[in-house]
């Protein structure tokens, strides 16, 4: 077993430390907390995955990410050990090259109770340290230098147990760590010194980035991706005025996202859209970000062999942003459907849906299709279309190829809401002097006899 201990001499708020421990789950499944001052990570089981230096760098970055804004980033200390007590003592009292460390006798407290702050145990250890100091012992090295036999008789059972723990023979069971049920983060926007609210646009982006970094780290610890977010904007309290209800901006995501940069872009888009719609009534006091829906999904290992994972993450983020602003039905892949009706020969496939291969139609089809057929007037060899505001477009027809008769699909149920049954159509490919071929049809029956033509598509 090898244990890393991330120790904060200036204690962090308990919920922050819990969030940090949750983020550390990405490194190891065995994580524990000590009150509001330390996180333990068992790394022995994954020592082939992380080198000590790599793990040290990762933990330092994580530690800095979860510290409150405005504090210097290097407040966390990192300690290593064969068990939790040794790692905590290492983090608290610094490194030592000696085989028997020159840590003070108070370090015995770390071995006695690494995971909990117990006043009774602390008193026992303090009394023992005083007794040992009276015997002339100054540090743990001297403590361990005493002869091994008869510890229980000379110093009492507690000393014998501590000696065993220092030698790594009597380890302590790890308490279970459970992440918070709700994945939410809060960012205080008030100035650290003056406690005044009100941030400019640039500062707001900076705070948003921190928030997204923390949420993404926790998501990664849980091996989840965000499928829905809620951004809460809390306004400052002003004496003499009624407190305003916070704004809650819901952001359902078309595709689950886990990368902090993608989360930030999505939320920034949402904030900008909201800012266009309405003004902030007061200065902002804090920002809260809650993950309202999740989807399973490991965060990709970047640059393992190529940039594929990064590209997938960037694509998912892009699709979410586009869907959010333009609408889900407007960002899609196309899929062919075996139908004769040209307008129904394909469908919009959502990006997440797997694709089904479809065969190409045997008869040549145009590259562009009008949203709805446009009425044409035939005047000699000219075809005219009167558009909006009386604007006319005309083509000189040179060559008519066809007809290709497309009949109604009587064997298929008609969707509800469709009025008259579809009429059989005769399609013509019309070569024009302008160089663009037109796909023109006429309906069977009365309309055909009247000579009405419709423009369905064109080759461009």
């Amino acid at each position, binding site marked *: 077993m090898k244990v890393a201990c991330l120790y904060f001499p200036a204690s962090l708020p308990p919920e922050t430390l819990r969030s940090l421990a949750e983020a550390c789950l990405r490194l190891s499944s065995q994580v524990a907390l000590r009150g509001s001052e330390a996180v333990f990570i068992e790394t022995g089981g994954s020592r082939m995955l992380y080198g000590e230096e790599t793990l040290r760098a990762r933990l330092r970055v994580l530690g800095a990410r979860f510290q409150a804004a405005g504090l210097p980033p290097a407040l966390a200390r990192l300690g290593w050990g064969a068990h939790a007590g040794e790692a905590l003592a290492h983090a608290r009292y610094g490194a030592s090259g000696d085989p028997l460390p020159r840590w003070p006798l108070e370090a015995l407290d770390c071995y006695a109770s690494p995971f909990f702050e117990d006043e009774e145990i602390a008193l026992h250890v303090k009394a023992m340290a005083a007794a040992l100091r009276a015997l002339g012992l100054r540090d743990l090295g001297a403590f361990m230098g005493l002869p091994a036999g008869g510890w229980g008789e000379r110093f009492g059972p507690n000393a014998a147990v501590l000696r065993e723990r220092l030698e790594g023979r009597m380890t302590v069971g790890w308490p279970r760590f459970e992440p918070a049920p709700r994945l939410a983060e809060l960012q205080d926007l008030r100035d650290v010194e003056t406690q005044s609210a009100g941030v400019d646009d640039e500062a707001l982006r900076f705070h948003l980035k921190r928030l997204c970094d923390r949420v993404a780290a926790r998501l990664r610890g849980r091996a989840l991706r965000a499928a829905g977010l809620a951004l809460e904007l809390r306004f400052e309290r002003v004496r003499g005025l009624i407190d305003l209800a916070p704004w809650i901006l819901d952001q359902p995501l078309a595709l689950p996202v886990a990368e902090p940069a993608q989360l930030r872009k999505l939320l920034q888009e949402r904030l900008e859209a909201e800012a266009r719609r309405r003004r902030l009534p007061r200065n902002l006091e804090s920002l809260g970000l809650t993950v309202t829906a999740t989807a399973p999904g490991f965060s990709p290992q970047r640059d393992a062999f190529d940039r594929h994972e990064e590209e997938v993450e960037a694509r998912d983020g892009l*699709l979410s942003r586009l869907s959010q*602003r333009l609408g889900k039905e407007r960002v899609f*892949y196309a*899929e062919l459907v075996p139908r004769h009706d040209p307008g129904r020969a394909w469908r919009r496939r959502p*990006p997440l849906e797997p694709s089904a291969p479809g065969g*190409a139609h045997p008869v040549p089809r145009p*590259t*562009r299709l009008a*949203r709805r057929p446009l009425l044409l007037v035939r005047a000699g060899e000219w075809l005219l279309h009167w558009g909006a505001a009386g604007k006319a477009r005309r083509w000189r027809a040179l060559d008519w190829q066809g007809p290709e008769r497309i009949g109604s699909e009587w064997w298929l149920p008609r969707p509800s809401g469709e009025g008259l049954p579809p009429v059989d159509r005769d399609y013509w490919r019309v070569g024009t002097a302008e*160089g663009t071929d037109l796909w023109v049809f006429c309906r069977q029956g009365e309309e055909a006899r009247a000579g009405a033509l419709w423009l369905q598509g064109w080759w461009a």
Partner: protein
Amino acid sequence: MPDSPSSALRRLIEDPSLEGAFISSVPRPRLDFSLHAAGLVQGGLTHLDGPARTEAVLRLLAEHPAVQAAWVEARLTAYPPGFVQRGVNLACLLFVEAPEHFPWAVTELVRSQVFSVVAVASPLPDTMALRRLQLAAERAACAVLLAAPLPEGSWPVRARLWCGWEAGVLKVEEGEQAALGEAAEG
């Protein structure tokens, strides 16, 4: 009377005392295209004009079936069954319909670096949008094909190609102003 900026620059380049002071720019990567021997520039805007511009885009996509591409249009008129007949792989072609926020959607697609080719099938509103798109294309090394009329003063466009049919064969030729774009590239 002062020289125009281009003639002043030309005089500086031709000055023998300044020989070696100018470093020619690194040529941009190009996407192979059978109808245009020089290929299409990646990291720039290419305008496709003529009655067969959609066919030219589809030919390019058919020649690169594994390339991730996007087709963006204000009101969709693309007809995917016709695309498949020309050999386009629909699994690699994302369609985006943006009746509102059209310039934003195009720029986001290009900037994302997800797509190697982005076909813009509706006109952009102004030169500013084109300029923004050109910068995004340069940074993302993306081939942006403008298959729609250009706004006034479209100087950010790097190359202009004319696409049409000759005796039933699809032809792509450099437009009149294409040489200007090439000269600007150095």
